[in-house]
């Protein structure tokens, strides 16, 4: 199995083998992060540009550390302070970064599909660090990496994703990735936060948190994005917590060793009780650590594909 894509845009278009290749590659990079000198020369002489159209600390820093551990040079562009403010288009920004001889653009954008559009217009690699509600592939990969590390497998594992599925790129990427690797996925949310046709992505839908927790090996708790509520239709913070919050009490009926995951940042007391977030089932901080290895793997693979000249143009 060889990686041939110049870009990583989402998990929907990947095969199970490609996903496994990323996870396996990440495993060897994780070993690197345990060494005294946590740096390898794999991307020496390469330039990675973090192009962030949305505020993000965790993902950007994670990509930056990953790139630096691969010995790449890293440039961060936050669009609030760039030519984007002067009306530059996404494609112009991308082609300019290409003209500066960067090798990889890591992009976070508030519009779904932005990474795909950029990737069509530049010859350099594009790694999607989250596009609108569409996909956040490296988040899902690090979630899967953590699951595999903890449970030894992904096939037949029961994962429940709880929260605002409708507006969540994390949910979409997780659903594609997990179902491709044979996990059973359930999504749980109030009716208005379940997008139409989601079951065609191969998941079961429930509105009962009890049901979602019942047989789950892991629960991935999404951040409630109240800022997305343009119609005033979301439940209140308290109402959401009462109906869907992950609490110690609710976990009593779940499997004893259920894994508690969260992509962050946490809304303590809204989607998750502090005692759960900090409790012994929580792998939330391990997810953050694993994010570095997974992103190292992704940067390494897309760079290699382009260097070997085997990259599929699309």
């Amino acid at each position: 199995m060889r990686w041939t894509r110049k870009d990583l845009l989402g998990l929907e278009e990947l095969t199970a083998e490609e996903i496994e290749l990323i996870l396996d590659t990440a495993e060897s990079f994780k070993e690197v992060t345990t060494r005294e000198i946590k740096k390898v020369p794999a991307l020496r002489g390469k330039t990675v540009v973090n192009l962030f159209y949305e505020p993000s600390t965790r993902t950007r820093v994670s990509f930056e550390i990953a790139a630096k551990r691969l010995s790449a040079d890293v440039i961060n562009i936050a669009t609030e302070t760039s030519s984007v403010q002067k009306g530059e288009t996404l494609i112009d920004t991308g082609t300019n970064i290409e003209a500066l001889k960067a090798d990889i653009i890591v992009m976070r954008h508030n519009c779904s599909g932005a990474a795909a559009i950029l990737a069509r217009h530049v010859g350099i690699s594009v790694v999607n660090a989250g596009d609108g509600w569409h996909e956040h592939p490296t988040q899902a990969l690090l979630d899967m990496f953590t699951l595999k590390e903890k449970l030894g497998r992904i096939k037949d594992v029961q994962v429940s994703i709880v929260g605002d599925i409708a507006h969540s790129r994390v949910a979409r990427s997780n659903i594609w990735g997990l179902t491709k690797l044979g996990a059973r996925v359930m999504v749980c949310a109030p009716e208005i936060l379940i997008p139409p046709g989601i079951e065609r992505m191969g998941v079961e839908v429930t509105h009962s948190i009890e049901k979602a927790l019942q047989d789950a090996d892991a629960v991935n708790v999404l951040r409630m994005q109240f800022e997305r509520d343009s119609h005033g239709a979301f439940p209140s913070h308290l109402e959401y917590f009462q109906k869907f919050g992950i609490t110690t009490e609710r976990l009593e009926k779940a499997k004893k060793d259920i894994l508690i995951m969260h992509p962050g940042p946490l809304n303590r007391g809204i989607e998750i009780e502090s005692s759960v977030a900090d409790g012994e089932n929580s792998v939330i901080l391990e997810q953050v650590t694993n994010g570095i290895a997974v992103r190292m793997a992704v940067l390494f693979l897309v760079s290699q594909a382009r260097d070997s000249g085997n990259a599929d143009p699309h």
Partner: protein
Amino acid sequence: MQILIKNSRVIDPANGRDMVSDILIEHGRIKQVARELKAEADKTIDASGKITIPGLVDMHVHLREPGREDKETVFTGTRAGLYGGVTSVLAMPNTSPAIDSAASIRLLKEIVRKTAASNVYICAAITKGREGKELTPFAQLKAEGALAISDDGSSVDSTPLMFEAFKSAKEHDLLVICHCQDRSLSGDGVVNLGFTSTRMGLRGISSESEYKRVQRDLELAAEAGARVHIAHVSCRESVELIAEAKKKGVRVSAESAPHYFALTEESVLSYDTNMKMNPPLRSEADRQAIREGLRDGTLDAIASDHAPHTENEKEIEFERAEFGVIGLQTELGLAISELLEPGLLDWQALVQKISLNPAKILGIDKGTLGEGSDADLVIIDPHREWTVTKEGLVSKSKNSPFLGKRLKGVVEYTVCNGTLAYENQHAAGR
């Protein structure tokens, strides 16, 4: 000027004709259609093995002039039409300024008189500025030559105002063309609501937002006794509602566009903004319903909804890109490839959909090859194929959803008002 077209298969449903024949054109009109015509014409075209049909009448075209000449002009749009066999277009009023007064119609007519490459008919707005608040002066619009009224691009949301519009349109015998979209339902949607919008992480536009408004407008038109035409039908439910209304005797006609019978929402998954239009590409079931509606006559006409946009407005993030695609140059090829070839329509029916029926709906003397009528016709090589490319599209804008597609049926010559208005290089080189 005389033109003699020899030996083509002449398909002319207006006169019940389908035979190999010659056509003699003189002084802008069809002088004679018969076998073995002898004439010392200025131009004689040997069209053996070719098909001649009346020029296409496209009743849904955005020429963008006045106001957005960077997207298209009356000249470039009508010229693109000639390349596609279109000899008559109905220009939609969502220009800047909108065509909502006698003065703005006169302005447009002046541009048409000076620059149009084919016949341009005018559709005026229903409400001033297309704002949905105050009706335009229908009597004056009609007197200036408007054939129809429409707020195309949006729908008149106020039901009482729309009812007034239908009543007044009936009084002035104006056709009302309805862009059916309930914005309170479609919201900020950009693709078909359902699995597609969910998969893409984009806001959806439901079929309901279309057909609920179709239902309202059919009811209002029926009650007022007005003539109503439903534009760019995209979903199954709308087709069903129109079929029902026709059964009840409502004076309704309807059109769909090639992208709705040729494409589905699958095409939009790559975030190609050339696949973004309003209404959006829908499901395979909807596409089948459109095809069946065209076959069984529920849908009377094929119209392009030619909506040019510049690259700057399209080569951006999907949700920020403009809605709309061009289609004047490709609609004939798509009708042949998608409807004739699979046997849904025969040549007679195809010509009806794309030429005769829209002419009848608009009440213009087009869509016919009868002796004495305007000489608007297209000579087609029905067997040759071509590929849609940016370079080959002559519209000012290149936002076609069919770039790269192979189409059957090449326009060899287009005659408009008795003049050889377009000649395919391939044909010319022979």
